[in-house]
């Protein structure tokens, strides 16, 4: 016991916890004409823009997270596309988003249990570029320019859980996006899932 007390002189963490506004995010690439499922938060990624997970599939000891909202952001860019024939679907950046959210479903799993199954269109990003675009062109083959995002980029436009969900430290969790069939997009797109809420961590 005396020895334990001696170690206490050198501690780096102090009694109590602090709570801060925070987000957990992870990003996985949707591959056109191939992907039917993507799993998030189950691996460490190479760069911080892709993920801020510090352990695969769980939070480190001493940290827990209260999920207040779930958001899904598409890291697309504006695209120039040929105009489709009249009466046909127009493949472009907006059509990519429409396809992805219309048939995509997100499932949040914690431990051995699911804690929500949501159509992807419900989980608006609530952020991203907002603007207008016009094409000036004497049409030859036809031209279109487009950009799309998952919902209006306004922070009020987020799916807030009616009952927040707490992920305790060292408990397995992940999110899985599924589609009934692979979608053909004009370009592969990085999809980012964000768990938005409160991080509970040690006082240091």
């Amino acid at each position: 016991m005396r020895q334990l007390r001696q170690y206490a002189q050198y501690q780096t963490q102090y009694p109590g916890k602090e709570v801060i506004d925070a987000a957990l995010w992870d990003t996985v690439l949707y591959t056109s004409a191939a992907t039917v499922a993507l799993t998030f938060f189950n691996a460490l990624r190479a760069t911080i823009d892709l993920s801020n997970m510090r352990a695969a599939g769980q939070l480190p000891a001493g940290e827990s997270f209260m999920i207040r909202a779930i958001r899904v952001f598409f890291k697309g860019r504006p695209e120039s596309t040929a105009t489709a024939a009249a009466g046909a679907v127009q493949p472009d950046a907006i059509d990519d988003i429409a396809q992805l959210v219309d048939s995509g479903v997100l499932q949040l799993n914690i431990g051995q249990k699911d804690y929500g199954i949501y159509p992807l269109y419900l989980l608006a990003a609530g952020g991203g570029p907002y603007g207008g675009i016009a094409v000036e062109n004497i049409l030859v083959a036809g031209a279109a320019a487009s950009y799309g995002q998952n919902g209006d980029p306004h922070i009020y436009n987020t799916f807030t859980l009616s009952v927040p969900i707490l992920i305790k430290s060292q408990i397995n969790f992940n999110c899985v996006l599924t589609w009934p069939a692979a979608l053909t997009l004009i370009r592969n797109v990085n999809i980012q899932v964000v768990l938005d809420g409160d991080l509970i961590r040690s006082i240091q």
Partner: protein
Amino acid sequence: MNYNDYRSQYGGSIEVIGGVLYDTVAYVSAASVALTYFTVVRNNLALSNIELAGTFPSPKAFLIRSVSCKIMQRAFSSARAAAGQVQPGAIDNIAQLVNTGVFEFTIGSKRYIHMPLWMMPGGSSAQGVAAGDGDVADPGEIQDWATNGKPDTRNVRTLSKPIFIGPQVNFVGVITWPAAITLAGGVNVNVQIRFEGDQLRPVQ
């Protein structure tokens, strides 16, 4: 001599006013991979209102209630990209900067804010429309404009728990990108980080 007869601050009291703290740094096309905020006095109120580099003079302090990232993008005219290619322009500038940019804010030696830039919309900004008159030969041009999120003063990231910066405590913000981004036309844009909250200062 009774110095109390000549004082400029009264009773050690503090008054609280609504405050804004901001700093602006240029993103240099094809070069920047990190921008650092609040560590330099800019001497230009259009860029920053920091009085001291990286700290508040005693007894001033600040309670952060929300955080925003405003990208000072102007309306832009670009050559239309070939069909099937990414379309450079104002929207693409914003998309690229927020898709991979991550903001980190440190007080003392500990990180208190860490989130993707798209989750920190800029709030109010210019809003408009764009139109082309169709007299430019194929492949034509595009005109566009964009902001980081819908330009609405309510569209800012409000912290679920405010963060207090005490007097004479070091603080710094950093935005990082995994690689430098080439902006439309190679034109640099100013990126501003803004905190809104309560400013604490002496009663005078």
